[in-house]
């Protein structure tokens, strides 16, 4: 059996041809978005910028560019683009969500909440926005818990441990993250252009780092709260097959973390070898289903692996999302450790 998924490639080719025939076509938005989703952010950026030269007042095009910028880690630029989209289309829910996302990343929890509440008023059935809003409110509650007092009046001063203390929910932009879902969907318009005070400067980096370290979870607690129930267990494993963080117990309650880490790290070497020859690029995730269990793993960084194990009753889609979340949590945690 050999399958060939040609849908996206065909669509990209069709849109490229369409733009070649008619450079003024709005097809550039869709093309840029598809390239972004495929991870080709440089090409996506070029297409979006070229399109915006011809359509500078196209709110949707600015929103597409904003998402590309988020993928590239250029948050300030993404903020500016969503801001522009919102000015051009005052009920643009994608822009509201995006601005909420970035405000959250910057620790401006009140701004984030305000944007998301507004986004929800535009799209009341958007579950991703609702989930993102819940995250923000959890962060605010967590912040209040840390301070043992009321929230600060100025959300721009909210310490970073409000974010770091979220139970395994760093708001990184990637598939499977409710924030990503919130940012990726992009419809319509809104009424109120009275948005945020965009003149605020990012907080002092030393403060961010120091505050983050205050809330740095212990290895045992790193993945606590990632799974909606106790059916999934998460481990962080280094390239030598040693457990770095997390817990994994067998059915009888015995600690199985070390044996699972040691056995599964070898699978990655085998996968690396296969990828070198099969011309499919680097592997992103490996999932193995048996009658008793499902195990899924992905790299947290070049030297560490995240393993999620669950009973076979767990839905694979849910497992995949927990894996993605664990991957981000582990990557952030490791980055802070260096």
């Amino acid at each position, binding site marked *: *059996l*050999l*399958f*060939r*998924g*040609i*849908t*996206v*490639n065909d669509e990209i080719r069709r849109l490229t041809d369409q733009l070649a025939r008619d450079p003024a076509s709005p097809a550039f938005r869709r093309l840029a978005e598809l390239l972004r989703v495929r*991870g080709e952010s440089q090409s996506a950026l070029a297409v979006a910028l070229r399109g915006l030269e011809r359509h500078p007042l196209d709110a949707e095009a600015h929103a597409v560019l904003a998402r590309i910028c988020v993928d590239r880690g250029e948050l300030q630029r993404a903020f500016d683009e969503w801001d522009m989209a919102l000015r051009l289309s005052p009920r643009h829910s994608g822009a509201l969500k995006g601005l909420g996302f970035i405000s959250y990343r910057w620790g401006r929890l009140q701004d984030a909440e305000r944007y998301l509440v507004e986004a929800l008023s535009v799209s009341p059935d958007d579950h991703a926005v609702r989930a993102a809003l819940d995250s923000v409110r959890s962060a605010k509650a967590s912040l209040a818990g840390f301070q043992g007092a009321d929230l600060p009046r100025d959300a721009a001063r909210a310490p970073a441990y409000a974010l770091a203390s979220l139970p395994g929910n760093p708001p990184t932009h990637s598939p499977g993250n409710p924030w990503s879902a919130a940012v990726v969907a992009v419809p319509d318009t809104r009424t109120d252009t009275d948005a945020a005070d965009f003149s605020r400067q990012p907080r002092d980096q030393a403060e961010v780092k120091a505050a983050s370290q205050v809330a740095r979870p212990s290895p045992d607690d790193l993945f606590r709260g990632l799974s909606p129930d106790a059916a999934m267990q998460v481990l962080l494993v280094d390239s030598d097959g040693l457990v770095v963080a997390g817990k994994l117990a*067998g059915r009888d309650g015995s600690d*199985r973390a070390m*044996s*699972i880490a040691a*056995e*599964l790290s*070898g*699978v990655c070497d*085998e*996968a690396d*070898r*296969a*990828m070198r*020859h*099969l*011309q*499919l*690029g*680097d*592997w*992103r*995730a*490996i*999932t*193995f*289903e*048996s*009658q*008793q*269990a499902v*195990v899924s793993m992905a790299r947290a960084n070049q030297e560490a692996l995240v393993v999620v*194990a669950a009973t*076979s009753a767990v839905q*694979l889609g849910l497992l995949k999302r927990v894996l993605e979340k664990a991957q981000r949590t582990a990557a952030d945690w490791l980055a802070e450790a260096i």
Partner: protein
Amino acid sequence: MAVGESDGIVIDAVLQADSRADTVAALVASLYRRTRLATAAAGLGSSGLLHLEAESGSIFAAGRGDVVLVAMAEGRINTGLIRVELLRESRAGA
């Protein structure tokens, strides 16, 4: 493609003309075997379905006895559909 798990040799295959069946078979069978043994040793059960997601495609392998059914797909695909088909074929071939 049906492959012998222990030797990685192709039993039967339907492939695109430019595909290297022997290479794919050997590598995927080896990966499947390694994963199966690792999960079994770790007490997570043995024979089952392997799904490897890569940057530009996916590999699926479902084992039954010494035979592994392998599917390789490029680009974005319906993972659920391939998974169901492969498991069905794997059970039918048992």
